[in-house]
């Protein structure tokens, strides 16, 4: 596939695995849960959808998976229009729902085998064993689902979603209400699936996780996508460095020689607070310059606290900002 750099047609040779355009969902009560959403997901990526409760994350997933009937808009998966070729597309999509919805009396192994066959694949004991082992469910394969703990039930739901070997997997808050150990396992597993080339779209409340794992992040609120970006890009654009320098003796005002820094006094002049930079390290070098300038100005300090803003800060800022905008 020799592509010429100047050929505009080939600028995006990879067709998105999922293309949502103009998707709106108005529920029976009149509530607009999705408002003209456009979103494209690339093959093989791990996409994290962040948003407060009620933002429309579950509705968005439901619209793709056939649980929610879109009011308008189109969804294409693997190039198929879901309104027409839903069978072909659905056979390759897996869903782990937010709620722990399981049959009570069914044995674990049979539940997973059922999921595989329901999606039209031939029974495959070896494959089921592999899935159960990878989720530490093998020892429990004969147990009834009701005998499983909450965390184990969540694993089972993942096993069921993986049973038909989907190329596109939705995980709706996979780590909500799950203990630390299981959460770590879950992330290992998600990492492994992604290695295998499965495209993963997940929603989460734990922003650090999205920060660590996701290739791209989308922020949704009130049914609108506020921002979709490469995670590094988003950090660069919206990231900030914060530094608090504790002074040996308080200052009453900032000396003129330091005025060009983005700083202000706090705690009755006993500390200098810096906030600036862009998430690519510019802030840290400015803090270094600031400390040199402090010494040059004869200002002594006893400690420096420095931190980069997290995706969470960005997220909170962004959501709050839009909220105040909305009020005005």
């Amino acid at each position, binding site marked *: 596939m020799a592509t010429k750099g100047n050929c505009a047609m080939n600028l995006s040779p990879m067709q998105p695995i999922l293309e949502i355009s103009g998707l709106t969902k108005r529920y029976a009560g009149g509530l607009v849960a999705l408002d003209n959403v456009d979103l494209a997901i690339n093959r093989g990526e791990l996409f994290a959808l962040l948003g407060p409760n009620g933002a429309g994350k579950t509705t968005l997933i439901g619209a793709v998976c056939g649980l929610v009937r879109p009011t308008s808009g189109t969804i294409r998966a693997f190039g198929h229009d879901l309104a027409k070729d839903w069978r072909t597309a659905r056979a390759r999509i897996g869903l782990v729902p937010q709620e722990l919805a399981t049959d009570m009396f069914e044995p674990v192994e049979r539940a997973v085998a059922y999921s595989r066959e329901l999606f*039209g694949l031939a029974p495959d004991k070896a494959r089921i064993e592999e899935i159960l082992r990878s989720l530490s469910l093998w020892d429990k394969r004969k147990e009834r689902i009701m005998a499983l703990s909450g965390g184990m039930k969540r694993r089972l739901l993942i096993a069921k979603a993986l049973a038909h070997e989907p190329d596109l997997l939705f995980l709706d808050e996979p780590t909500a209400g799950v203990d630390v150990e299981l959460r770590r396992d879950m992330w290992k597993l998600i990492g492994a699936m992604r290695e295998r080339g499965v495209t993963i779209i997940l929603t989460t409340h734990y922003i650090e996780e999205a920060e660590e794992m996701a290739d791209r992040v989308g922020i949704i609120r009130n049914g609108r996508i506020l921002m979709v970006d490469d995670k590094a890009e988003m950090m660069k654009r919206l990231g900030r460095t914060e530094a608090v320098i504790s002074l040996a003796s308080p200052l009453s005002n900032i000396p003129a020689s330091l005025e060009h820094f983005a700083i202000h006094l706090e705690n009755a002049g006993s500390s200098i607070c810096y906030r600036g930079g862009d998430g690519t390290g510019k802030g840290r070098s400015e803090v270094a310059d600031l400390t040199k300038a402090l010494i040059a100005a004869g200002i002594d300090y006893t400690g420096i606290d420095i931190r980069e803003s997290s995706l969470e800060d960005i997220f909170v800022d962004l959501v709050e900002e839009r909220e105040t905008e909305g009020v005005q």
Partner: protein
Amino acid sequence: MTFNARSAWAIYKRELMRFLRTAFQSVLSPVLTTSLYFIVFGAAIGSRMPDLGGVSYAAFIIPGLLMLTLLGETTSNSSFGIYMPRFTGTIYELLSAPVGVAETLVGFVGAAATKSLILAGIILATAMLFVDYTIAHPFWAILYIMLVASSFSLFGFILGIWADNFEKLGIIPMLFLTPLTFLGGTFYSIDMLPKPWDTIALANPIVYLVNGLRWTFYGTSDVSIGVSLGLTLGFLAICVAIIAIIFKTGWRLRS
């Protein structure tokens, strides 16, 4: 039209397994009830009753009793089969699968109908312990039982989608099905009713079901077998049409 046989088979198998898990209760209760009916109506009261259309009273009530159990059990089995996944939320999997109305019906309704056939066999075997009877048209009897089982499985399926709580699920069988079956000539021939009740009784659709089955058993009935067969087929067609519409619109299934 695409039909995903593997998916339909998976649903069918799973539903039957669910039945086998509770086989003891599922079978014991109808067998017990039927036995009690035979003891009370067949043996105790029946011994003082004249033959009806050349059939002993105990034998006369067999098709009606079978219908009574068949309608109730089929409807409740089938309605629970689809209501429970809706109630627990596990229906998400079915809705997200490459499965349409045809696979769902073959799976759920086929399984419910199969259970009913098993049940019918057990009830007829139980009847043999109490009554000496022979079936005049065994082929038609089996066919008719299958037809009724399928129709009421479909009917139960609609009920299970319509119901949004357990009361609603139970109310149709309790309020309509059981009374209409009792009044539908299970224990008597509608000829025995005083005027004008014998005519009014003909407005009860269950009369045609009971009498249709009675014809296959003993070759005689209050109404013609053609009318019974036609009505049952019509009912089946209406149920299929309603379910097709439910799936097309996603009513009570997809939000």
